[in-house]
């Protein structure tokens, strides 16, 4: 756990450093993700418990958004009278894009005969 966490932090740090050096528009952690992925593909040595540590953090990914969410509630007065209209735009826009993305993906997968219908664990 300790070693794997150190690996995650080192790669995030490397990502942040690269972003500053190159002036990339991507955030440091996303570069860190790419670095860890490249590391895994190259089959370079990693602490044994890296998989378990990553799964452990991702299992409670929701928790990590709570402080930012509370911050947003504090900012709600910023929306003023436009609040409801903003929420309406968000709801319609995300419904359209969720449907368009998933339908495009599933239709192409079916067309190319690579669809994997309902794999492990049926969903709700």
């Amino acid at each position, binding site marked *: 756990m300790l070693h794997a966490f150190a690996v995650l932090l080192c790669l995030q740090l490397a990502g942040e450093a690269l972003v500053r050096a190159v002036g990339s528009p*991507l955030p440091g952690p996303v570069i*860190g993700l790419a670095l860890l992925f490249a590391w895994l593909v190259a089959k370079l040595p990693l602490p044994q418990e890296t998989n378990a540590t990553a799964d452990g953090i991702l299992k409670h990914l929701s928790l990590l958004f709570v402080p930012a969410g509370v911050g947003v509630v*504090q900012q709600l007065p910023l929306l003023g009278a436009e609040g409801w209209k903003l929420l309406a*735009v968000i*709801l319609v826009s995300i419904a*359209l894009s969720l449907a*368009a*993305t998933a339908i495009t993906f*599933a239709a192409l997968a079916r067309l190319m005969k690579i669809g994997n219908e309902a794999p492990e664990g049926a969903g*709700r």
Partner: protein
Amino acid sequence: MINFVDLWVYLSGSPLLWLTVTLVAYIVADAISAACGRHPLANPVMMSVVFISCVLVISKTAFPSYFAGAQFIHFLLGPATVALAVPLYRHLPEVRRMFVPMIVALIVGSVISITSAVLLAKWLGLSKLATLALAPKSATAAIAMGVAEKIQGDPALTAVMVIMTGISGAIIVTPLMNMLRLKNYAARGFAAGLVSHGIGTARAFQVNPLAGTFAGIALGLNGVLTAILVPLLLPWLL
């Protein structure tokens, strides 16, 4: 009662209190979510946020003193993003097979997400600042705020849109996909991550590990594409 007030004054000034409140609120919210069979409306992020916000209002606590404690949790978003590489590598064969559908769906979804938000905002007569904040709403917060600066928008308002998009998307994705009768969990997860970034990805991991993996990919790819597309599309849309 004097003692209680003294104790409160002491505790409310230390990061320990709000760190603990955040963690315990989430554990309770997650237990409720599990008890409701992970029903989309029992979203653990939303429940924790509502509960903590009420506590802050009742106790008249300012956000900076809350964040002094909660920042330790917020900080973990960085290493968690790096950790997304692990499920991505684990599901590499599926990801390879799905490459073409993924890239086409990415472009379709990203364009629709940006144009629908801007056009709807214009149609409802929203202010320019609000419209600009809505354009990058589906990108992860760090990227969306960077885009906002680039297009002379307001990064703080943009962050509000990003989180609202994340939570609403995490709530509506499951009923919407069931309504559309889509059973391809790669497609469902990819849509959740593309539209609702990290919060959608967290929801996808709750439902299915393959959905979570594709959500993580979509979160990364759409972050990049939104940063490229918003400045390009805006002059045409506004």
